[in-house]
């Protein structure tokens, strides 16, 4: 060896390492599993199944999706864009319309006695309905209820629904229950 090689200073190594680490931490997107959360109804054996005749017609918001992915809402054609508004109107029934669902007074924390809707959204689909369409419809219905809750939260507590504490969220959920029923598959004549 002709000359001793000077040692490369490694003091900055930590800095470089941290820089890289932070770079990667910021840029990578972890894939988070997310989706529409739903609760299925309890299984009832077919022989015990009764027709739900006790629910009055004005209390049910029937959404049908046919094999061509078209929507039939309360017996009329509807586009997906209007579904959210229709569902909101149904669940809220602000003017106590005769054709929209009945309400029932109920005691709720923070709110006192409020009129709570008895409305149920019933979603039926054909065997050949596209799954994407089905999810889009479900999404609109869930969005309708979420929007109502959000509006109520802003009006009552002046905060977004997500920022409320658990009791307040529960109270709001009681006022606007999420009653979306994915109907029993049954044969509906024709298609």
């Amino acid at each position, binding site marked *: 060896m002709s000359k001793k*090689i000077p040692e490369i200073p490694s003091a900055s*190594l930590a800095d470089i*390492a941290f820089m890289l680490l932070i770079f990667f931490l910021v840029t990578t997107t972890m*894939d988070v599993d997310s989706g529409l959360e739903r*609760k*299925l109804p309890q299984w009832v054996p077919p022989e015990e199944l009764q027709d739900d005749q006790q629910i009055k017609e004005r209390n049910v918001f029937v959404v049908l999706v046919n094999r061509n992915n078209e929507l039939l809402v309360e017996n009329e054609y509807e586009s997906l864009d209007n579904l959210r508004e229709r569902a909101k109107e149904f669940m809220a029934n602000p003017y106590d319309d005769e054709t929209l669902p009945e309400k029932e007074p109920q005691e709720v924390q923070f709110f006192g006695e409020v009129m709570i809707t008895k409305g149920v959204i019933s979603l039926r*689909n054909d065997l050949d309905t596209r799954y994407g369409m089905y999810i889009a419809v479900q*999404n609109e219905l869930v969005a309708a209820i979420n929007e109502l809750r959000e509006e109520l939260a802003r009006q009552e507590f002046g905060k977004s629904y997500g920022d409320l504490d658990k009791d307040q969220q529960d109270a709001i959920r009681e006022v606007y229950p999420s009653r979306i029923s994915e109907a029993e*598959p049954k044969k509906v004549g024709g298609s």
Partner: protein
Amino acid sequence: MSKFRKKGGKELPPISTASLPDIVFMLLFFFMVSTTMREVTFMVEIKLPTATELTKLEKKSLVSYIYVGEPLAQYQRTFGVSSRIQLNDQFANIGDIQDYVIAEREARSEEERPHMKTSLKVDENTKMGIVTDIKQELRKSAALSINYSSRQRVER
């Protein structure tokens, strides 16, 4: 040019490799932390539908997955092109779902069982018939919490 030549006269100092292990370890740790292990290999093609009202799936260990979609090209010879169900690493029939749910439940401890969820990863072009059948099977096996897996839609 002559400017560069002047320096080249000396012997090239070897690069110190003392920091190499640190860098390697750092990368290793990074990948270890960030990768989410996928336990199954997809045998079906899945393009998830889009939605806006999403809920995040927490506690991955409590989630069991059901995949539905068209078989990938290499399986189409044996399994055809129509939508199939995939449980774990194999194609399954509707009748296998109850056994699958029971097996998944057995694998969890007693106190975790009520919080179990089933995530349905279904291709958006699947027909609802197969999904309805799956839902009925899930109801029969009392796995009522489900999550329709979907991607975040970008608002227009």
